[in-house]
């Protein structure tokens, strides 16, 4: 079905969801790792508007924005496993929660991680409020999309790894089993899916990175991270 390349960073959770999508569809692809401090001319050519990763290149044509890429992958490699459900209402629901993750849940988590003191406490309230909505949405379901995992599990998949690693790095626990029983059960089940389990970035490297970010290597690192959000 043509040549596929993925421009990504090694640590970005937004890139990971595209990796999972490609692997689950059995698509062969080449990975090009970007250093966001020194963006390649290719990246600037393929995503001139945002200059961000991930970017999928299919037969030389770029597709940007991870949620857009996920739907593109689902529609292009459309035989076999489908990520989005068939029913229009179920699709609308999945898209709603995907948008909520990208525009509210993840940014609020990031802010919580990057702040200190009273600011961090306020940020914590916000992320917990957001996660409670997600917890409620998972009620009675094995995966976000029902009995079988799909689009929304790929979107929320970062929860399986990143909060846990951040907790190891700086002792900042977020997902308490008592407060979030549905989420914690889902994390175990989704985390057990082979493609998910085998593709996490190196934990030690992530811990080191999180330490560096928190130790205030300045606006540069914060800006770099903002570029990594898709």
């Amino acid at each position: 079905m043509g040549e596929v390349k993925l421009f990504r960073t090694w640590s970005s959770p937004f890139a990971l969801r595209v990796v999972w999508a490609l692997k689950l569809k059995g698509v062969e692809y080449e990975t090009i790792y970007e250093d966001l401090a020194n963006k390649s001319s290719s990246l600037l050519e393929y995503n001139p508007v945002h200059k961000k990763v991930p970017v999928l290149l299919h037969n030389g044509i770029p597709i940007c924005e991870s949620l857009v890429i996920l739907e593109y992958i689902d529609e292009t490699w459309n035989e076999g496993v489908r990520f989005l459900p068939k029913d229009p209402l179920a699709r609308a629901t999945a898209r709603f929660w995907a948008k909520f993750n990208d525009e509210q849940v993840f940014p609020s988590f990031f802010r919580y991680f990057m702040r200190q003191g009273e600011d961090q406490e306020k940020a914590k309230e916000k992320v917990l409020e957001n996660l409670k909505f997600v917890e409620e949405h998972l009620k009675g379901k094995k995966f976000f999309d029902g009995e079988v995992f799909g689009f929304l599990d790929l979107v929320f998949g970062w929860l399986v790894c990143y909060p846990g690693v951040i907790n190891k790095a700086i002792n900042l626990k977020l997902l308490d089993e008592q407060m979030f029983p549905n989420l914690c059960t889902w994390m175990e089940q989704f985390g057990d899916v082979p493609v998910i389990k085998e593709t996490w970035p190196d934990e030690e490297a992530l811990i080191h990175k999180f330490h560096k970010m928190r130790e205030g290597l300045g606006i540069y690192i914060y800006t770099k991270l903002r570029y990594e959000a898709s």
Partner: protein
Amino acid sequence: MPKKSEIKLLGTTASPYVNRVQFALNLKSIEYEFIEENLVCKSELLLTSNPVHKKVPVLFHANKPPICESLIIIEYLDEIKSDVHRILPSDPLERADNRFWANYIDNKFFPLYEELRMTIGKEGKEAIKKQIIEGSVLLEEVFVKFSNGNDYFGGDDVGYLDVVLGCFIPWRKLIEKYNEFTAFDEVRTPRLAEWTKRIWSHEAFKDVIPENGTIVNFYMILQKYKPPRVV
């Protein structure tokens, strides 16, 4: 095929995001009941149907759970009545391209107008106007590419980006008037200047355009509840 009583739209006539959905409903010849919401004193219906964001528009279809977020509502309408005026194209690459630019318009371009409204001071305002102009020039290029010599982003008829960008015309006109500039002007963005007139008079949009009094009133509400601040 949805029947008239089956589709209800909760919204305010002044909201461009609500107008966007109305534009799509009209294009697809879907009859609906409009329920006016008071955003200053939000109804129980809004708070229960959109507890996450507490925002309009919200679409109700028969007894199904409500659908929120205007772009998501449009894709839903396009899928339930795919045989009448297809809004998104069917090719995956074209769909991805359309969705990318919809995100740009909603997350980068239009928010500049709210930022402009909220900014006090000439220097601050000029800086934002400059960004709006840059965005307009970019959107002119997008129009040229998508329209392929025709009248709309969708080609020879209204498509997704016509709906996504078109709904902002009334609100943008107001903000531009108050700030003494024109984003889609005839010299810098000639195609978009023509396109604006076309959308303004399009049969599926012209009856959706809020009356001047309504939109000015909405502006005053925003000035009161989300007042401008010094940068």
